[in-house]
């Protein structure tokens, strides 16, 4: 498709001649200001509209088809959430308005925090962080502020298992910690001996997601958080995988002191280009004074302006009150059931990285196929694109070779799961029948096989005008 600049025809843009003349005197900006006109595209409104419709047709969202992208929880976002977030009482306001005039918004934020605290077993929550990694960063600043408040400056290290989401070590590093990576055991869970060897007087905390990135609930979770606490560290819960356990098990009861949530994953608000996101951070009572939006002198200070991405909070609130206290664990159970259903139906053809009952997602290893016929996880993922299914997460977690990580979520029907299973089985047969052809796929998408290496080595990141 054409870029907006390529569609542009000089002078074709909207005319300003029908607007009343400006009643503010024109001021020429001088000095080091821009001296040339910005080269903005110029199109009639209908062309702009067609441009965006074309972009939409060339994208794939959860409203276009199945989207089993592991660790991303691409569940359906109910339309009623959008209705709620479009109410003028939520949109036609400004954070600097008098509190008296925005009581509804304040009440909604307070109630949402209360629900999120109840689901996570935390005592306090901030809605400021704008997305998951921002929530992690905020949580880590709480841990840092806590140790500092006790004059304990030698706690500089954050322990992260090698199966962790990449954002964990990145956030820890951004927060000024040194990252200590510990290996997973043969079941993909935390290696207790390695953890015991890693903790010490320099341990600020541990970051963990449970269930972990291979889709397993760590059976030693209480012992894990116990080991860290005993060493004087705090425990941080990465809420990316909360969808598997919400309403059933609480991070607070597992021994975690700080959490972040992804409202855009677990609580059914759009993400993956449809955002913005929201990554609230929660904590136990003893960390409350450090939260960003308190008046306490120990506060770490604001991590984002005002109340964060408030309309995302509205959508999450709408989701929670529409599914209710019974719906929360029901959603989690559905997510786990759907993952196990697909896993069981595929296990004879696609070797599973860990052959036990999984939680909300499972990881297949295509190492055998790669070895036997040279067809990789990437090839299988590309083959799925030809059939209108967004591929699973590829090559993650790093501890599994040729990984495909599948997270169907609870909002998919059995028929959709059956179709996806059949497709993966058909792809398996096609791969063994004609391995070479697999490297050419996809054939029926807007663009074919992309040159990912070329894109990374020689990225073209802005439009270059001809003249």
């Amino acid at each position, binding site marked *: 498709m054409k870029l907006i600049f390529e569609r542009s025809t000089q002078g074709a843009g909207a005319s300003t001649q029908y607007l009343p003349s400006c009643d503010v005197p024109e001021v020429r900006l001088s000095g080091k200001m821009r001296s040339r006109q910005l080269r903005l595209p110029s199109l009639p409104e209908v062309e702009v509209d067609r441009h965006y419709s074309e972009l939409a047709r060339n994208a794939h969202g959860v409203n276009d088809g199945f989207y089993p992208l592991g660790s991303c929880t691409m569940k359906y976002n109910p339309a009623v959430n959008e209705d709620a977030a479009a109410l003028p009482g939520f949109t036609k306001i400004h954070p600097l308005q008098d509190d008296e005039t925005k009581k509804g918004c304040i009440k909604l934020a307070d109630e949402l925090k209360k629900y999120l605290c109840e689901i996570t077993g935390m005592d306090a929550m901030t809605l400021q962080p704008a997305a998951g990694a921002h929530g992690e960063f905020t949580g880590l600043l709480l841990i840092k502020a806590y140790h500092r408040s006790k004059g304990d400056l030698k706690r500089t290290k954050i322990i992260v298992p090698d199966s962790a989401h*990449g954002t964990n070590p990145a956030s820890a590093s951004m927060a000024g910690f040194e990252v200590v990576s510990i290996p997973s055991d043969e079941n993909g869970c935390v290696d207790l001996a390695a953890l015991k060897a890693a903790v010490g007087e320099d341990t600020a905390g541990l970051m963990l997601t449970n269930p972990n990135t291979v889709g397993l609930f760590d059976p030693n979770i209480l012992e894990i958080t116990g080991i860290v606490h005993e060493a004087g560290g705090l425990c941080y819960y990465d809420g990316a995988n909360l969808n598997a356990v919400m309403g059933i098990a609480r991070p607070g009861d597992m021994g975690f002191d700080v959490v972040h949530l992804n409202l855009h994953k677990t609580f059914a608000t759009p993400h993956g280009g449809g955002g913005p996101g929201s990554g609230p951070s929660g904590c136990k009572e003893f960390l409350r004074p450090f939260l960003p939006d308190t008046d306490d002198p120990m506060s770490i200070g604001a991590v984002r302006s005002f109340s964060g991405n408030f309309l995302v909070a509205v959508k999450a609130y709408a989701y929670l009150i529409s599914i209710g206290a019974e719906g929360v664990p029901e959603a989690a159970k559905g997510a786990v059931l759907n993952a196990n259903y697909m896993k069981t139906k595929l296990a004879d053809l696609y070797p599973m990285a860990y052959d036990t009952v999984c939680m909300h997602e499972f990881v297949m290893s295509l190492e055998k196929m790669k*070895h036997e016929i040279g067809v990789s996880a*990437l090839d299988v993922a590309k083959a799925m694109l030809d059939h209108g299914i967004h591929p699973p997460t*590829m*090559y993650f977690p*790093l501890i599994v070779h040729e990984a495909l990580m599948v997270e169907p979520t609870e909002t998919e029907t059995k028929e959709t799961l059956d179709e996806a299973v059949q497709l993966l089985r058909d792809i398996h047969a096609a791969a063994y029948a004609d391995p070479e052809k697999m490297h050419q796929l996809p054939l029926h998408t807007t663009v074919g096989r992309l040159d990912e*290496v070329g894109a*990374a*080595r020689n990225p073209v990141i802005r439009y270059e005008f001809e003249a």
Partner: protein
Amino acid sequence: MIFPKELKYSKTHEWIRFEDETTAYIGITDYAQSELGDLVFVNLPQEGDDVAMGEPFADVESVKAVSDVISPVSGTVSEVNEILADEPQMMNESPYEAWFVKVTDISEQEELMDAEAYEAFVQENN
């Protein structure tokens, strides 16, 4: 797959070429680059940095993932092959010429394999 005879190899797929007992060049093996796939970025240490045996000193990025490069020796980085930053494909095209760092003042080294033992090790792991 190439396994040059004059090099030593680590279990984490780095090659080491000793100039003398305390000086060596380090890179990643042909097997490592073929497993990683096309490399698009490398994060190198700086001259004067200390490297520790068994600890990462650099990382390489493919379109799939970022992987640590582990130092088989303890010592000091005296030279860095900056060309790799601009031409990461060198690591794929000629892995044994694409050295990452020159390390001097080597004080300890892990148990390393010769070419034959490393080739057997790779076969076994495949």
